[in-house]
Structure formats: C-alpha cells, structure tokens
C-alpha cells in the first residue's frame, strides 16, 4: 500500500472553532483531511476522527454536553468501539468525557479565567493513538486555550485512571517536573490528557493542531499527528 494516505476526519459542530486548524495540521503532516458535519451520520470512510476545539453549542450548559448528542456522534462512538483512533482536542475532550468514552469531567479553571499560553507536557505513556513512538518522560511544547479545562474525577475514578495508566500527558516544566507551579488550570494530578483502556480514544486540553507550524507557534504537536497518522494507517492497511 505504498503511497496510501490515511483519511482523517474532523467534525464541525455548531460553534467548533479549531476545525479548520485541525484540517490544515493533518494536511501539513501528510494526511488526507476530511471535513465531517455534525448533522450527518456518515464518517466518509475515514481512518481516524478528530473532535476539534471550540465552543460547541456555545458551551453554555456544560462544555460538550449538547454536542455529545449530535447525530455524527453515533458513528463516532461505534468507530471508537471498533478500535478506530479518536482524538478529542479541548472541546472535543470535553465531548468525549460527556459521552462517557473517557473518564472524569471538566470544570472551570481554578483561576476562573480563560487561559491561553504555551505549556510543556510530559508524555506519560506510549500506549495511545497520539503517543505511539514517543518516550514516556519526554516533554513537548503545545499551547493551551480554555476556560474550563480543570479535569476532575471522583477519588475512585482517579485511582482507577492512575492504576490503569490512562494519563497520557501531564502539565510539567520543560525538564519534566510535574508540580503545582506548572498546573495552569488546577487539574487533579496535573492531568492534561487521558486515554481509554485500549488507547485508541484520547482526549487532551492542549491544542496540538496549533503546534505544527514553527512560523506561528511551537512544534510539539508534530509527533502527535505523526502518531495519529501512523495509527490511522494501520486502519488503511489492516
């Protein structure tokens, strides 16, 4: 299958904002970007799905609460259950939590303020669709921009998440130190991203799609997209 290019779909919900950026990042990293519409139950034969950032339905009730009921979410959930790679970025992460595909929930940042800045993330596991080929302990730089990014969970849930090593990224210093000073939103245990048990579903608050082009930001998103495209390729080949 040389020359095959994986198709990666990006869902546009009403109020999605970073869908265009995700589409561009996929193309830039060598994938074939496919735009998906919230109102359609058709995944257009994609090999991976991204739920992008933004404020779906204004995020007025709870972030992601309304989007999870969009018609497109039916095939997305089925795709996830079949093991297809699904990445939720920021609002997309919130949608995945609301839909029960990932544990925990997001509440407002500890500061109650929206925060947009470049942060460092420590990779916690290579067992996920966006960290395949990365080394646990290494750090990458990616921007965050959210008002409700404080990931929380009940103590039991948290214990399970840590035991099963579901944390994919933690907010850290450039050298990989994880502490409160590096926590931009108050997330429990500095959690910035998590996966499901199989690793095919991942959600993260930071925005890798804004970290692939050195002219406009850091480049920590490149290896994550490379990993996603690689995992999607498995779908193309297998």
């Amino acid at each position, binding site marked *: 299958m040389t020359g095959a290019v994986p198709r990666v779909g990006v869902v546009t919900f009403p109020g999605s904002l970073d869908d265009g950026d995700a589409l561009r990042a996929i193309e830039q990293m060598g994938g074939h970007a496919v735009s998906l519409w919230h109102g359609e139950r058709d995944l257009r034969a994609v090999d991976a799905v991204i739920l992008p950032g933004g404020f779906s*339905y204004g995020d007025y*009730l709870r972030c992601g609460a309304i989007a999870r009921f969009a018609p497109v979410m039916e095939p997305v959930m089925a795709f996830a259950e079949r093991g297809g790679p699904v990445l939720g970025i920021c609002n997309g992460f919130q949608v995945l939590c609301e839909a029960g595909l990932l544990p925990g929930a997001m509440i407002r940042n500890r500061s109650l303020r929206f925060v947009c800045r470049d942060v460092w993330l420590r990779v916690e596991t290579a067992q996920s669709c966006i960290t395949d080929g990365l080394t646990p302990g290494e750090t990458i730089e990616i921007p965050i921009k959210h008002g409700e990014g404080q990931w929380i969970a009940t103590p039991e849930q948290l214990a399970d998440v840590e035991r099963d090593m579901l944390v994919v990224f933690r907010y850290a210093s450039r050298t990989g130190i994880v502490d409160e000073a590096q926590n931009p939103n108050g997330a429990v245990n500095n959690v910035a991203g998590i996966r499901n048990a199989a690793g095919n579903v991942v959600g993260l608050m930071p925005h890798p799609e804004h970290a692939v082009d050195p002219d406009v930001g850091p480049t920590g998103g490149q290896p994550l997209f490379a990993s996603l495209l690689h995992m999607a390729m498995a779908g193309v080949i297998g």
Partner: protein
Amino acid sequence: MKTFTFEVLVTLKDGLSDPQGKAVESALPSLGWTNVHHVRVGKHIKLDVDAEDETTALEQVRGMAVRLLSNPVIEDYQVLEVSPK
C-alpha cells in the same frame, strides 16, 4: 453566634436574552422532548453565615447579593433561608 444557611438565586432579568436557556431549549427536541419552553438558566449560590440572629444574617446576605453575587443592571436575586443549624 449561630450559623444560618441561605440560598441565593440569581437570574437574568426578564426581557434579556438568555443564551444558556436558549441553548438548552433548542437541544431538548432532538432528545425527544418537544414540549419544553421558556428555559431560563440562573445561578444558585448556597452559603453559611455566622451571626447573632436570623435577621442580621439575612440582611448581610441581601447585601452580598446586591454587591457581589449579582449585577442589578441585568440580574434579579432572591434570598431563601434554608434552615438554622
């Protein structure tokens, strides 16, 4: 000194558009509820106040509601006492 528990309800004044309420209202039909109207979303604040007596406590909570918990230009508030502890 006793402790009194209050609830303060802060809602957008009638006549103002309520984007949150609108979002909920328009999401409900697709979940099968087509019979819901006039959805308004407000804030509910619960707090404990230490005071000599109920009247003093109530008065203080009213003060907080006006000065901090609501902006009278766009919001109304209502103070409810829950139960003395």
